[in-house]
């Protein structure tokens, strides 16, 4: 039997597995052969085993608007996404280049503001960004690293070119799923890994810990690192505990920490123990009620003062969100040229800014053909996919854009590439993206792999877990097939 050749419908999208004339791409050939030897029953058996393992291990995420049974497993598709070495080399170089430029940009706008003075990026766009932190002007972050953990979302266009859809520079999540997905695949298809020479992703946690230790305050021989979580109700709580455990460091909540004389301590049964580096998975706004949102109960009063005094380091730094504002995103290629004098290796998706009069006019006239996004929302919220929306939804967004142009951008719809995915008993093409994880310690490294997210609903372009998305294991190969 063959799982896909008979029924798989290839549309006009770029397909990860099949070439234009329907042949297997070389790096997928062995996978196809292996699948060919499985009966549908065997395949289903493995799927069920993997799902059960995820549920039993509690590899789940939490859905916000649901009080009962708030945990779900992130649907996992057994067919991996495979990236040959030559493609990965380019992705890796592009991501390193991008994060280098973003880090220089953050340093610049919080210090000299050269790029604003040279009018490469309009100052008004930066100053009006929701996550621009005036409070940290002229503050020198430890080792001059602003973004220690970055997750940029990549998509492939019609011709298979990789492009950057957005950058996540605050608290990108998903790295734990990358590692758990790999573990699940190893259990389901142990032999396939040997024949494929897949590069391991398991080094992520160790590199993360190294990056965190890199920013420990000077003169600290045995830095104590902690992961700061908003708590069990957070949708990514599983990931927080997973990473803490992989790194062998405590996971703490705001109430576990106290600040005394601008130093941070955790409350233990043996008394107060100093904390030197915090991998925080809490947004800026909630970190410290004294400085940011006074109503926050998740944070630690005095934490920002301790950070300012250099007694504790934070990853990521405060104020990085300004650079993943979707308006600022549009300027990243310019930043790369400005700071590095290089051409961007990975292009952006063409973006129109509603705050620019000419672009705004274009958006309002063509809104039904565009994807409109609000500048600061994540998780697929606050978004309009013009071609897939009703008249009423479009009218609603048109009014929003006109009223608050700074808060919206629009992009040409990209028909994300598709990959064969098991859907209700047959293989069907589903749209996917890719979130690789980039760590900035002593140097910048990209974990070979990432989280491939898949839009499970037929025809959907929304891959977010909160909106019906699933995931695949991502295999980066040592070689090209």
């Amino acid at each position, binding site marked *: 039997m063959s799982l896909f050749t008979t029924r798989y419908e290839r549309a006009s999208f770029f397909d990860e597995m099949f070439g234009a004339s329907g042949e297997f791409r070389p790096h997928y050939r062995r996978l196809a052969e292996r699948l060919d030897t499985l009966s549908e029953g065997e395949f289903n058996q493995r799927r069920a085993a993997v799902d059960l393992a995820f549920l039993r291990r509690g590899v789940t995420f939490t859905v916000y608007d649901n009080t009962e049974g708030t945990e779900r497993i992130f649907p996992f598709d057994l067919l991996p996404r495979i990236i040959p070495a030559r493609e990965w080399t380019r992705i890796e170089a592009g991501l390193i280049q991008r994060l280098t430029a973003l880090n220089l940009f953050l340093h610049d706008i919080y210090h000299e503001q050269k790029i*604003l003075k040279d009018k490469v990026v309009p*100052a*008004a766009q930066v*100053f009006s960004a929701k996550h621009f932190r005036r409070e940290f002007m002229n503050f020198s972050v430890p080792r001059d690293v602003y973004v220690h953990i970055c997750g940029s979302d990549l998509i492939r266009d019609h011709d298979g070119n990789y492009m950057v859809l957005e950058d996540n520079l605050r608290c990108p999540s998903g790295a734990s799923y990358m590692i758990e997905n790999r573990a699940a695949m190893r259990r389901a298809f142990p032999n396939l890994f040997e024949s494929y020479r897949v590069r391991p992703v398991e080094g992520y946690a160790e590199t993360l810990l190294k990056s965190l230790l890199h920013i420990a305050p000077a003169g600290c021989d045995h830095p104590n690192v902690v992961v700061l979580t908003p708590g069990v109700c957070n949708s990514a709580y599983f990931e927080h505990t997973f990473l803490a455990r992989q790194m062998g460091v405590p996971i703490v909540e705001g109430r576990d920490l106290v600040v005394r004389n601008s130093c941070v301590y955790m409350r233990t049964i043996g008394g107060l123990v100093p904390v030197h580096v915090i991998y925080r998975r809490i947004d800026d706004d909630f970190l410290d*009620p*004294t400085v940011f949102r006074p109503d926050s109960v998740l944070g630690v*009063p005095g934490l920002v003062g301790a950070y*300012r005094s250099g007694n504790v380091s934070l990853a990521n730094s405060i104020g990085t969100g300004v650079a993943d504002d979707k308006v600022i995103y549009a300027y990243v290629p310019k930043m790369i040229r400005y700071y590095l004098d290089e051409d961007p290796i990975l292009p952006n998706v063409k973006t129109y800014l509603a705050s620019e009069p000419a672009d705004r006019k274009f958006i309002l006239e063509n809104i039904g053909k565009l994807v409109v996004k609000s500048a600061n929302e994540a998780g697929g919220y606050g978004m309009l996919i013009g071609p897939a929306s009703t008249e009423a939804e479009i009218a609603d967004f048109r009014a929003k854009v006109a009223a608050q142009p700074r808060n919206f951008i629009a992009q040409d719809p990209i028909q994300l590439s598709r990959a064969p995915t098991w859907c209700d008993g047959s293989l069907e093409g589903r749209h996917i993206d890719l979130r690789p994880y980039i760590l900035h310690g002593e140097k910048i490294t990209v974990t070979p792999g990432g989280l491939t997210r898949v839009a499970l609903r037929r025809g959907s372009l929304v891959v977010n877990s909160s909106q019906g998305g699933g995931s695949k294991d991502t295999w980066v190969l040592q070689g090209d097939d």
Partner: protein
Amino acid sequence: MSGPTDRAPARMLLHLIHRTTFVYGGDARDSFNEVRLRPCDDENQACRQFSLRVSPESAVRDYTDFHGNTVHFFDVPEGHARLVIEAESEVETVPDASRAAPAPVGFDALAASPEREMQAEFLADSRYVPLAPEIWREVQDVLSGGRGDVWGDAVRLGRHIHSTFKYRPKTTGVTTTATDALKLRAGVCQDFAHVMLGMCRCAGLPARYVSGYFLNVDRLPGEVEASHAWVEVFVPGQGWLGFDPTHNRSSDERYIKVGVGRDYADISPVSGTYRGAPTLSLDVDVKVSQLNSLTAVPG
């Protein structure tokens, strides 16, 4: 333009004390605070001395914020029934006679000024200053006779507020916005400043909030000695010039500037959080006095 003279008018030397006392209905602890109380140094004033005392005693640190203001921060972890923050400073101010008189500058110059781009935030709305239609309409009423020059228009807006608003303490609070105050047509200096900011920004004039003190010789009815607020407007070639809509005058040697921001939220004198008993009373005591007489001394 005043050129160099043999006899420069003397600088005014001002002394000020700003004491804030919180009394709690029991124990307060884990108190974390930020204060913006140190007078700044600029072309019009120099802070000769500054000291900040906190009781219960606490290690005070400081940093410079986005707008260039000095921020002191400290914490009081142990339980305390009252918190006293006392700032004392001596400031020398440049006499009005030595300051350049504002010259008329047109709006083209403003649009073309190289600083314009960086001042975007002083033209946009902010927490206390929404750029609401009613503010915009108020501007249209005042400037209906046609636009003049940058400073001239700003002063017209300020004088309009002074003449149509009532100075009336206790009608507004610390959270009152520009639109609230406009509805009441009353308030205190903080409200007057916010309304003027809104009007200037609607008129395309970059304007910022100034927190400071004022040596007040003839007080308005009901006016107590407190920290003061006014407005600065950017005039190309001349920098930021101050106007006080509460007292209907440009800022002069009797004004001591602490710092600037988009509105009150950026530069509130004392802010912080603590745990424990509620606050029973908050007492603010400000004293501004002159240390020297204004006779000219040899230059």
